[in-house]
């Protein structure tokens, strides 16, 4: 090789970094970080304090959920759906049960329908109180609102434990109904909780919603317009805070949601404050649904006549619910065997996360944390 001709100089200029970004400070927030809601990393390029580019990096919690489901029977995946969005296990269960019940037409008894609605709305309360607590924790109110919110969440988790045996990973839904009925006295305890909840919401609103520091830090931060949200496929309270009236409980009216009267709060500005307030208002609407459901719930069986062996004919189906974080959907392709051919989860947290860079650019790094908190992600769902 020593006698080979010298290599010509490359015709292109080697540039190490993007010239404009050479002088920027690159900070990697995470994956070990007290406030990124799980193992989630954001590679942020800062110009002083302002975010210029942001790259979210996730996958640290990937557990192969979808591939595992292809090797198990349909019902065996039910406990794994609990672990997707581990705060809202009941909602995950319902989405999967809905998809599977479309594959095999099983009528769900009335009492099970009412109990499903009650569990889903209690889950919504759990999620929104936790979110409010975590959001304020990110803002710097060192844990006080978080612990007040968790006090309420504990009461609801006690109810879940009495009904299903577990606080968080409930595994309560089955194809065609529920696993078991609620114990005696459970409905009265739930009525008592629902009766006492508005007092907690009033206390929270009085303490927080007119606090000048919270107003100054969350208003006009992370503004998401309605058109941008629709383009990006955002769903859930984040979409409604940008002013788009799209709530699956009204649009699809799955379960028996068409029997309940409730309103859908809509935001105008689409900033962090709106996302925070929409969740507070949605909690009140959930309380209305709960009161109506608890009033009208009939007696009866909680399990329909599901086939013993779940072997649906070849079909494709998509079942979705309005989980507290957005549209949680399950896309199943059945091929006539007991195991699904393809099992796909539409995670609302992941889809909502795609606009993170657009929301954060131009704000300071402290705002990036607040914006991430307002999107409300759970890494179990993002990574599956």
């Amino acid at each position: 090789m020593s006698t080979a001709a010298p290599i010509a100089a490359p015709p292109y200029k080697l540039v190490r970094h993007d010239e404009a970004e050479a002088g920027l400070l690159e900070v990697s927030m995470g994956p070990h970080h007290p406030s990124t809601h799980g193992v989630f990393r954001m590679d942020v390029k800062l110009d002083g304090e302002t975010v210029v580019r942001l790259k979210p990096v996730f996958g640290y919690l990937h557990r192969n959920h979808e591939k595992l489901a292809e090797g198990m029977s349909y019902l065996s995946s039910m406990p794994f759906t609990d672990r997707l969005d581990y705060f809202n296990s009941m909602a995950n269960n319902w989405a999967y049960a809905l998809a599977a019940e479309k594959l095999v037409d099983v009528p769900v008894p009335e009492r099970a329908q009412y109990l499903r609605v009650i569990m889903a709305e209690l889950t919504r309360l759990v999620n929104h109180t936790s979110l409010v607590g975590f959001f304020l924790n990110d803002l710097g109110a060192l844990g006080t609102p978080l612990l007040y919110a968790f006090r309420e969440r504990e009461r609801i988790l006690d109810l879940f434990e009495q009904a299903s045996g577990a606080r968080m990973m409930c595994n309560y839904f089955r194809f065609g109904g529920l696993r078991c009925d609620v114990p005696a006295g459970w409905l009265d305890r739930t009525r008592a909780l629902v009766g006492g909840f508005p007092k907690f919401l009033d206390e929270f609103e009085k303490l927080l919603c007119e606090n000048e520091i919270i107003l100054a830090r969350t208003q006009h931060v992370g503004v998401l317009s309605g058109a941008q949200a629709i383009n990006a496929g955002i769903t859930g309270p984040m979409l409604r805070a940008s002013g788009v009236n799209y709530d699956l409980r009204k649009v699809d009216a799955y379960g028996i949601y068409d029997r309940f009267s409730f309103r859908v709060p809509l935001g105008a500005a689409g900033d962090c404050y709106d996302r925070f307030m929409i969740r507070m208002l949605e909690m009140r609407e959930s309380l209305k649904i709960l009161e109506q459901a608890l009033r009208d719930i009939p007696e009866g069986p909680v399990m329909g006549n599901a086939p013993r062996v779940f072997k649906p004919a070849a079909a494709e189906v998509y079942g979705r619910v309005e989980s507290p974080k957005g549209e949680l959907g399950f896309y199943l392709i059945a091929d006539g065997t007991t195991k699904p051919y393809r099992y796909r989860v539409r995670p609302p947290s992941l889809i909502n996360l795609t606009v993170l860079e657009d929301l954060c650019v131009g704000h300071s790094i402290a705002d990036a944390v607040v914006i991430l908190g307002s999107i409300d992600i759970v890494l179990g769902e993002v990574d599956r």
Partner: protein
Amino acid sequence: MIDTLIHILALTAPVAMIFASLFAFTTWLERKILARIQNRIGPNYINIPFTKFRKTFGLLQPAADGFKMLVKEDIVPHGADRFLHLLAPILALVPAMMVLCLLPFDLPFANESMKRIHAAALDNAVLLFFGITSINTLAVFMAGWASRNKYSLLGGMRAVAQMVSYEIPLVLSAAVVIMAVGSLSAQKIVAAQSTHWFIFTPWGLAAFFIFFIASLAETNRSPFDLPEAESEIIAGYFTEYSGFKFALFFLGEYLSIFAINGLAVTLFFGGGNGPWVQAHPWLSCVWFLAKIFGLIFIIIWLRGTVPRLRVDQLMAFAWKFLMPLSILNLFVAAVALKVQQPWLTWPLCALVLYAAAHGLSRLQQKNVGPRTYQYAE
């Protein structure tokens, strides 16, 4: 010469010992108060070893914490500047201890003529106080720089910007009291408040609010604890400190809180003045500490209640709100002290100050406020 040194030691050592033990008590107090605000109990686990005595209410927790800090491994990051890394906590601690000697804290032992003994009765104590507390800024910067860590650097820069900006309202609001008394000496200021405290005057009240808020920012306490923001940049400028150096930072921060609160008590609350002090001179020490702890209670309460300000909002608050207000306060106080007629000046001053505060706060953020929401059926 030896007796001079012994004399100096006899005056300053008690101050250091008293405030260092109060530091331990304050950490316990903070954890308990924060816990109760947050619907918890707080530490109550540490009990006296080798006994069965269980109800210590967590009072031995500070001792356990101190022991833990002592035996922890001292980690210095690989590329860090070892000398500056070591020097920064010392530089954070020494000015705080120095200014504690300047306070008019009547040591509770008297010499033969029953005169009050102060640690250092300087005649320009207040000015020296502000000068020495400005060294704390350097220590914070040194800590952020020496750790060779982007988070620490960010935290250090933010901390220095914050502390430098809030020095101006701090000094200007103290200048109101100095103007009223006519001297920089802490003893003379306390003596001038023997009849009524300065906080009961309109300009004194405004000056106290400005001073209190600026002192929260100087010592990096909530809601101005951006440099130590746990949820954003871990611990800011002391991310890379472990073990005893971290304990020294902690000690320095709390001692500077004592010092600034001591100055606030001196300037606005009459120092050691209180009921029954003429009869029992040693009570002035107790009153002084009680007033300091009243202010510390409010500081801890604020920490558990209020979220944090963002850095540009913090700076806007200092430069656009506190500084004009403190300059106006100075002017108003000068007018009121020249026209020696309280019945005329007091309502006028109160009105002017209130109007200024209200007007300035309206100027801050024009389009921020509570909102109402629409519903869709």
